């Protein structure tokens, strides 16, 4: 059978002469799922745009591109427009930004027909949404996108992508805005459409589980391609190995005694708005020194409230909270946040952010030169020896910023480090890197409380995982 997409020596050249995509060749067979996987900056989104003829003005493409038997290599803008939606579906990364916020969800789906001058009935749209697993579709679809949940709205996006039953759908990171368990069910809905899928993703775990063939993308080139099984067992290119390393288990920590309790919550509850909103409901949690405790649960389950209580910036409305004396000292708990760039002072050189905890008044006074020396060695510890210490956070990559944050959190060797979704803004190699660093911080004696929706990360990193739902904690020891 003819592949639904054939791409030979595809090269994309930007107006400034740089080539983010170089001589890429691959084919997608009908009904199969092909994945392009790579870290940030590998050229994934540029390829997706080029394959849809949506590379902007001034950007040139060369090489051969076939959609089925149609030669699209030198297609006119008008040909491209008639092909998009009919022969080529598209699912975007964030379901909310994919929808016009002023129009109800059903209009978003109907747009797939209307763009091509076709009509459809609301009933038809309702049926399609129901088939993809949207409950109460006919009632919900008159509501606006901001009232929908991410997983459901992404299903509406899939319904729109498959509206005119194109033989191929391009999905650019379709699940990265969703929780891990929802990501899988959304991917299942996508595959249920039955057409071929070109999945573009940074998440090698997700890709290996769900695709028939994988191409590893590195600096605009496909450095290796093959079935997931082969790639997993016999990857040869360093980039593939780097991506796969993110799946490998972390080195075991030596299990020293972790008996001294640091923090204990018993039957803690928190309400807001005079008891209207129950954020925590009889939650229990214990952290002992040197221990890594993971917290997982759906959004809105009270994870962040639990975290703020552990950080000491929020008080429980009921129950008992016990903190060890060690933890009550100033600077004893250090945080790591979700947004790496905003975690650093934007107008300071990064070394100053790293050194700041050492300059707190309760610590021994150090000269600026000594502070800088200590900051530099802390940055070297997190693998940032080659980064200019005088750079501003905006000059670093997101992954580097998060490593700077880890260096700052660990520089005083605090008894407790609290991490709130520390890897959700990072690609998988950076995620792996940061989890390594968190582990060495634990080796050095800090207890770590980490909240994340990434179950693979927690299972590899944490000594214990606490699952939360509706403000309650359900404990499980792995």
């Amino acid at each position, binding site marked *: 059978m003819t592949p639904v997409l054939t791409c030979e020596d595809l090269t994309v050249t930007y107006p400034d002469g740089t080539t983010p995509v170089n001589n890429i060749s691959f084919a997608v067979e009908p009904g199969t799922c092909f994945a392009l996987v790579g870290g940030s900056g590998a050229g994934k989104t540029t390829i997706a745009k080029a394959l*849809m003829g*949506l590379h902007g*003005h001034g950007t040139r493409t060369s090489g051969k591109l076939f959609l089925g038997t149609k030669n699209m290599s030198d297609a006119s803008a008008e040909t491209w*427009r*008639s*092909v*998009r*939606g*009919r022969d*080529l579906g*598209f699912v*975007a*990364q*964030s379901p909310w*930004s*994919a*929808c*016009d*916020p*002023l129009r109800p969800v059903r209009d978003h789906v109907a*747009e*797939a027909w209307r*763009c*091509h001058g076709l009509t459809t009935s609301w009933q038809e749209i309702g049926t399609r949404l129901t088939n993809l*697993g*949207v*409950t*109460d579709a006919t009632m*919900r679809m008159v*509501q*606006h996108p*901001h*009232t*929908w*949940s*991410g*997983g*459901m709205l992404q299903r509406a*996006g899939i319904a*729109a992508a498959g509206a005119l039953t194109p033989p191929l759908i*391009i999905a650019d990171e379709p699940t990265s805005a969703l929780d891990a*368990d*929802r990501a*899988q*069910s959304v991917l*299942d809905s996508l595959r249920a459409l039955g057409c071929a899928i070109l999945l573009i993703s940074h998440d090698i775990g997700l890709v290996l589980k769900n695709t028939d063939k994988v191409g590893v993308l590195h600096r605009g080139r496909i450095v290796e391609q093959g079935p997931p099984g082969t790639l997993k067992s016999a990857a040869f290119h360093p980039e593939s190995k780097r991506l796969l390393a993110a799946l490998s288990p972390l080195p075991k920590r030596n299990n020293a005694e972790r008996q001294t309790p640091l923090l204990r919550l018993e039957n803690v509850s928190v309400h807001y708005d005079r008891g209207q*909103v129950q954020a925590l409901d009889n939650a229990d949690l214990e952290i002992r020194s040197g221990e890594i405790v993971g917290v997982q649960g759906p959004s809105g389950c009270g994870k962040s409230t639990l975290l703020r209580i552990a950080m000491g910036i929020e008080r429980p409305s009921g129950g008992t909270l016990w903190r060890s004396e060690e933890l009550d000292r100033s600077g004893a708990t250090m945080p790591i946040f979700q947004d790496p760039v905003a975690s650093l002072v934007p107008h300071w050189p990064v070394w100053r952010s790293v050194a700041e905890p050492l300059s707190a008044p309760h610590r021994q006074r150090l000269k600026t030169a000594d502070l800088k020396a200590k900051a530099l060695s802390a940055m070297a510890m997190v693998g940032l020896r080659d980064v200019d210490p005088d750079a501003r956070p905006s000059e670093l990559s997101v992954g580097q910023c998060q490593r700077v944050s880890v260096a700052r959190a660990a520089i005083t060797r605090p008894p407790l480090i609290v991490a709130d979704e520390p890897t959700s803004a990072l690609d998988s190699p950076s995620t792996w890197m940061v989890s390594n660093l968190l582990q060495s911080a634990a080796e050095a004696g800090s207890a770590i409380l980490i909240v994340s929706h990434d179950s693979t990360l927690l299972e590899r990193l944490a000594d214990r995982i606490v699952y939360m739902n509706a403000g309650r904690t359900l404990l499980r020891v792995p």
Partner: protein
Amino acid sequence: MGHGSEPVIRQVKRLGRGGFPVAAFSRIVQAAVTAFAATVIVWALLPLAPGDVATRVLLARGVDDPSPAEIASTHEELGLNNPLHIQFLDWITLVLQGDLGQSFTSQLPVTKEILERLPATIMLLGLALVFSMVLSLLFALIAAGYRDRWPDRLIRLYTQIGAALPTFVFALLALSFVVVGFQMGRVLSDATWTAALIPAFIIGLDRAASWTQLLRSGLLSAMSSGYADVARARGASERRILLRHALPNAFLPFLTAIGISVGALIGGAPLIEAIFTWPGLGAYLLEALSARNYPVIQAYVLIAALSYVSAALLVDLIAILLDPRLRRHTS
């Protein structure tokens, strides 16, 4: 893997099913509070004014050298010996009945004089507002549709120049060199619609420059948003994306900016009317300013504040009508 546990509706709707009426009511209450605060400031102008009010009133009545007894009795008559809050209540009662006091200079009721001049100002500013909205809408759509091509460049040049010329300078130059120079109209204007056309167009053309800039950049950022990309990937034409998606989304911030600009337009009225020798409220205020005619100044500020508040309220209501997301943020 099942997905039955995931809720379709993400939001806890705290407002219940109220939606638009509830949000609209809260905006109206806010506007009423603002309007009340404005009336307090307006009233406070009189007690704050330097000099004795009673003396000014007597002078205005033609008593050239009032005796202390006359001043004292006028104090009594005007209620100036009452506590401030009583004075305010008396004042606002009169204002609510449509009595804005007596002009110090002409001794006629201010309300009557205002009502003679208000239509001229409304005519000029209203027409200017319509012109500038139409022009900026047109220019911004053309510029966004032909991005980086010559129509866009030309419009950008116009917006740069327009934004760098204060309205009164542009009006002065246009009036002097174009209208008078080519004898296109009369310089001395009466308050008729035909006489208002040219001045309103000149004001509108200048105002439209900054509004075009605003709407153009709103349209362009909407054209590069996620939903525009998705619409493109579905096969939508650029024109469809511009008109169906970008325009409605960029229109709301544009409308808000216009609502705020109404304040600047009213505040600029004296200047504009001075240039076009337009017999409106602004010209009336200028006479009052040089004569320290406080009741007239008060009346002008009151009218300006009330029209500003109503314009802002109108824009707010349109915004929450068009954008359901705004119905949540009512506090």
